[in-house]
């Protein structure tokens, strides 16, 4: 039997048979991933669009065709437009805050100092823990009566009565944006640090012999070298934060008075607490549309930049 198997294997195959075999092996290896992606992501996405055109209630099931009624409802719903605006502010302010801080901190970590490796390793911690951990730790620290932040501020005489971080709409939004900047800064810092390290040293040395100061170096060497990374960070992180449910839900829960009900929260509450699944699905479709517009605008901008560079 052994010899028979050996002769079959040793027989020179027709090259096209071998190619076909390779092709089918390649398709076979990717197939499980494609099946999972189609069943778990693409099909649900299409199903979501279909749901948004029906009347689907969590309690009563599908009760009929709705056409565009769910979208028309959203169009006239102040809470939806409020959520959209707050969501955009939340995503934009978080990304801009994270970016500015990271630009500074990545420069700090790029300088040489004792304990540099330790600092680079530890700075990532806020990025790795659950939103539940982040939300509760900060809520405990910002607690009006027993929080370390308020007790510290009172003790130092900075304020005379406790700061109520989550009570006013603007205060609550600002606070969660602050927490999100703390959470997202490490990732951006390490990404930008990678970018900084890839800029050739000679460029700075040449600039320095020409008498350039730090700001000139920053504006004419550092920023242009990093602009691609920065653009990608803005788009990808912006999209992600725009859709991030966990942190806002676990800190403000959308309150006070629905003032921080960003679209992910509005979709969740509409679907799973008011049981209006098709309306929630329509909110999801609208979010996807906003992202599509955003991606198109950004890719146009990035494309134009490339052309001007060429």
């Amino acid at each position, binding site marked *: 039997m052994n010899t028979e198997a050996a002769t079959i294997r040793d027989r020179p195959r027709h090259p096209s048979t071998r190619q076909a075999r390779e092709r089918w*092996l390649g398709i076979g*290896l990717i197939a499980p991933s*494609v099946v999972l*992606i189609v069943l*778990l992501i693409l099909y649900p996405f299409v199903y979501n669009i279909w749901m948004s055109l029906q009347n689907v209630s969590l309690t009563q099931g599908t009760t009929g065709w709705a056409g565009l009624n769910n979208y028309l409802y959203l169009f006239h719903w102040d809470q939806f437009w409020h959520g959209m605006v707050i969501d955009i502010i939340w995503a934009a302010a978080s990304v801009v805050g994270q970016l500015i801080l990271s630009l500074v*901190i990545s420069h700090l970590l790029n300088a040489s100092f004792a304990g540099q490796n330790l600092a680079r390793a530890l700075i990532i911690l806020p990025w790795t823990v659950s939103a539940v951990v982040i939300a*509760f730790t900060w809520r405990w620290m910002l607690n009006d009566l027993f929080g370390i932040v308020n007790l510290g501020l009172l003790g130092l005489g900075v304020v005379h009565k406790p700061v109520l971080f989550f009570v006013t709409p603007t205060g609550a939004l600002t606070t969660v944006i602050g927490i999100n900047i703390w959470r997202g800064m490490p990732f951006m810092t390490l990404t930008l640090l990678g970018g900084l390290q890839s800029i050739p040293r000679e460029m700075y040395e040449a600039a320095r012999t020409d008498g350039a100061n730090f700001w000139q170096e920053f504006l004419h060497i550092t920023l242009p070298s990093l602009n691609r990374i920065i653009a990608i960070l803005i788009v990808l992180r912006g999209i992600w934060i725009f859709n991030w449910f966990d942190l806002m839900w676990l800190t403000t829960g959308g309150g006070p008075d629905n003032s921080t009900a960003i679209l992910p929260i509005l*979709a*969740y509450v509409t679907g799973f607490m008011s049981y209006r699944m098709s309306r929630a699905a329509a909110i999801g479709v609208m*979010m996807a549309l906003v992202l599509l517009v955003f991606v198109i605008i950004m890719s146009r901008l990035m494309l134009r930049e490339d052309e001007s560079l060429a």
Partner: protein
Amino acid sequence: MNMPTKRLAGRILLYLAVLIVMLIVLFPFYWMAISGFKSPDALFQTPPMLVPIPWSTEFYQRVLKAQSFFRLALNSLIVALSATGLSVFFATLGAYSITRFRYLGRDLVAQLVLFVYMFPAILLVIPLFFIFRSLHLVDTYLGLILAETTFALPFCLWLLIAFFRTIPEEIESAALVDGCERLNVLWRIVVPLAAPGLAAAAVFSFISAWNDYLFPLVLINSDSLKTLPLGVANYVTAESTHWGEAMAAATVLSLPVVIFASLVQKNLVSGLTAGAVKG
């Protein structure tokens, strides 16, 4: 100022700035961990104790001895490990296929991976809930594992495609000429070379599934199937807040993640850069 003094001042400023940054980054973790080590009376004491002396394990005991704790931790482990195993295994095969084989539709699949990688959980959870409900997958391990896979699989594929591209094909060609079977080459040559990438993919898949809040919130109802983040969230509700227990439980939830992250610290940054979309 003469040059040496100016230089010294610059050094001092640098160390001061780094110190302040690290303090802001790390203090919440310190405060979380030690809040759990205070006695129930000391927790609400003013001025607060910056170091818990005498310390107490009361809150940690309450959390760890709660009947549900073991169950929650086990559920989290089952779901996170299964989603990670499933994703890393299929993504290894898939990434190898995309980077080493030629067939119709290959580039389309590569683009599809990038596209679905951008898909936010909140957009998926509404239709997934309905689809899973009709398949009786709501409130099951399998349903939650598959839901976590919607993040982990595209992430692993994306990371491993990038990683496999950096491995020179010549090593494999030599083995193939020697008559090695393709899958043998993948297992014996590519996988060992890609070990750092596989480790990063596995650790990040695990962390994202372990930390996740939204999918278990929607897809799990029974207490016996809930995961740790839901358990932690249970200590702080609109009706009652137990800050000591919440901080102790949050510390326990963070511990494996922090240990894991430090284990793959070397690959952390490259892995994180690949995670730029989500996480």
